[in-house]
């Protein structure tokens, strides 16, 4: 078996724009699932609305394409009704942080045994490039034509504070590390939150001086810093450059878990 067997070959090629990082994240997730030896009948993919949430439509297993921001409540329901099932949630930053923000906090608080993969492209890609809660300060979008003035959301810190059992962040450049992180997240009981920073060449890159897809991937590569290194910087009191993406495993702990099979 390989990750290709999890794709619905009749539905490919998918609708994502050329250079969109979402396809990479789906590859990594399916590769991790393939290594987990899960049965196709016992795996469910749940998603909300958005670019990233089109992903379960290209996967052979059962899937739910639910209302905007409400992927996590639906996933909670599946896990409560069928604790033996493996539930994976694909979601975007607008879906998770803006419209489903409260659901996310409470799913972390309850610590349900699901895996949440957030494809954070820092913008509402599907609806035409509106600014989302994760748009960085100064970034241009349709609703922030003079640069975003609000500080951006750090979803990983939010998940840690709310009580998720496993939190990690990688980018679409770090494919091997992301695959490993998704696998560790699936093995960890409790809510595992993996944030994957992806490039959006059509709506984000075009407005923010990334003419080519490779420019934005290079930006993700050069601006990312491992968490251990970041903590060392913090310890020594050295300033960290602006717009640094802290990557790596943030936390792995054993809080009480809800929804384990009895």
């Amino acid at each position, binding site marked *: 078996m390989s990750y290709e067997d999890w794709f619905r070959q009749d539905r490919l090629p998918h609708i994502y724009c050329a250079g969109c990082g979402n396809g*990479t994240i789906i590859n990594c997730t399916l590769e991790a699932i393939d290594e987990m030896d899960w049965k196709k009948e016992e795996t469910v993919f749940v998603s909300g609305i958005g670019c990233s949430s089109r992903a379960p439509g290209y996967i052979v297993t059962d899937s739910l394409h639910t209302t905007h921001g409400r992927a996590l409540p639906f996933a909670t329901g599946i896990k409560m009704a069928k604790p033996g099932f493996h539930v994976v949630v694909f979601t975007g930053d607008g879906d998770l942080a803006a419209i489903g923000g409260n659901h996310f906090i409470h799913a972390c608080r309850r610590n349900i045994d699901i895996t949440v993969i957030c494809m954070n492209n820092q913008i509402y890609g599907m609806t035409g490039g509106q600014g989302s809660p994760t748009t960085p300060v100064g970034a241009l979008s349709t609703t922030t034509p003079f640069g975003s003035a609000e500080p951006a959301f750090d979803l990983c810190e939010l998940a840690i504070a709310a009580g998720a059992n496993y939190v990690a962040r990688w980018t679409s450049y770090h494919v091997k590390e992301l695959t490993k992180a998704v696998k560790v997240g699936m093995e960890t009981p409790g809510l595992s939150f993996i944030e994957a920073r992806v490039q959006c060449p059509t709506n984000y890159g075009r407005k923010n001086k990334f003419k080519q897809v490779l420019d934005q991937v290079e930006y993700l590569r050069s601006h990312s810093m491992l968490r251990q290194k970041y903590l060392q910087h913090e310890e020594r009191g050295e300033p960290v450059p602006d717009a640094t993406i802290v990557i790596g495993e943030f936390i792995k702990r054993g809080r009480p878990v809800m929804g384990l099979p009895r």
Partner: protein
Amino acid sequence: MKIEIDESRCKGCNLCIAGCPYKIFQAGKKANRKGILVPLLDRPERCTNCRLRHLYGRVLCGVCLMTCPDQAIRFREERPGETVKVAIEY
């Protein structure tokens, strides 16, 4: 084993060029039937996975495989009787 790019799926984003440590993928120059510049393969026999996968029994690098957002790159076995170019370790 050899690398193959599925032209019906490739959208010409050139992400494989950034990923490959051997720089096997080069930017395409000629548009295909759909008007997409599909990347060219520069001496693909250098690929680690193609050379040593059967020896080690696992996927060795596979970064292009994971990076390709359109699932256009795949490794396939040579057909019986197909000529195989062999590369010496660089």
